[in-house]
């Protein structure tokens, strides 16, 4: 991990930070848009397109399979067909 250089005008660029959970970050973002009604294909596009830097960074770091599995897992978590009690 690069250490911050206080005399570097771009001292915060590309510096890793302690703590934080990248997997949870990816899950939260997926969940937000899935709950807005986005399809799996739309969600995958959100990760694949470089215009959306945050989600695309996850895509580059973790790969296509990771994102596909993530979307499937979050879909399963919120899917009405797989819920504990079913529709009331």
């Amino acid at each position: 991990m690069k250490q911050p250089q206080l005399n570097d005008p771009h001292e915060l660029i590309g510096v890793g930070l302690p703590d934080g959970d990248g997997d949870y970050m990816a899950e939260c973002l997926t969940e937000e848009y899935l709950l807005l009604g986005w399809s799996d294909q739309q969600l995958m596009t959100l990760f694949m397109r470089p215009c959306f830097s945050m989600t695309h960074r996850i895509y580059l770091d973790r790969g296509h399979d990771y994102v596909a599995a993530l979307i499937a897992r979050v879909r399963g978590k919120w899917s009405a067909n797989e819920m504990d009690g079913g529709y009331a």
Partner: protein
Amino acid sequence: MPDVFNWQLGRKMNYPYAEKHPRSQFAFVFNINRCIACQTCTMACKSTWTFSKGQEYMWWNNVETKPYGGYPQSWDVRLLGLLDDAHRKVGRAAQWDPNQRAGADRPYGVYDGMTIFEAARSGEKRDQVALGYEPTDQEWRFPNFYEDAATGSENVPDKLSMKPATLPAHGTWFFYLQRLCNHCTYPACLSACPRGAIYKRPEDGIVLIDQGRCRGYRKCVGQCPYKKPMFRATTRVSEKCIACYPRIEGKDPLTENEPMETRCMAACVGKIRLQGLVKIGDDGKWLEDRYNPLYYLVRVEKVALPLYPQFGTEPNGYYIPPRWVPRPYLQQMFGPGVDEAIEKYTYPSRELLAVLALFRASQKIVFRYEIIEGPKIFERTINGKKWSMYNDTIVGFSKSGKEIVRVSVEEPKYVRPDKHYNSI
């Protein structure tokens, strides 16, 4: 210097002017969890207000990548550093005492440290009313510098390049922070102006710079902690966000005299923004307005929190904090209410879920809502907690009491045909 009451700090504080409050206050809530930094808000503002000569570097609304980014560069790191230095010099610590939480006067407890006004008074050189600094031209010049890389069209109309960014990447957590003028209750820009050119409108609390009185001393630029007043070299006066006040006044013919949300709010693609007006009493406290969505989110559910409340200006922009970010970072940015806010957002109550559906459902400002209960549609254990969802319908009403929006928690979906360019 008189004492004024700042409910976000849970105590009185020094401010150069005695308390005098507007009848209502411009305020907004941003849900950070949903923002993907598409910058549609930024461009909506830019194309409306700051497209002229001398305004090239001005972004009254901007979205920056945290923890790295800032416009102007490192504005909050610099401010926090100045505040830390001021505390160190007098041997004090800037701490919150959340145990003193009590009702509407102290919802986050009490801040024991110094605000930017108090820190300015504690220094040897009292050349500032509020602690601050004036950013350099270099710091203003590059919004989102090294934060996110835009993708161009490769000279082919309507065809985006799919090549990834090659700039240094952030190998860690991050999130996007949406920023505009907070139209603070105790504005540092207003207090810093030696000309008395900055004023807070009594009808809606919007903070404006009188362009006729301003002589461009730039004291507001240096002492606003959020760095939202900006100097225009071509006119030699300062400018800032005007909260799209013609829209707030209902002057846009589209809304038939009903107050309308600002350009940046109305343009939000991710549905993260909700803006309105809250009622203010003579003592500056928010009057109870239980079914105003902003009152509910900030004062009842406490899911939305002020940005850097420790600065002491009582900002009127509130944020639902991002769930995935380490708590100490969020607590520094939004104060001690973070844990409660995230818990409530992660497992939203029936009412909160309905109110979240109001975000970006209408361009008109929602002054009151009603919820019509619907059937339970979902019940299961989420992250170890039993949670139910109801397909309630929420109805929003305008200032004059007309129904302006009706939306259900489970919205009917319309898929835009893929022949349109912006279908994804």
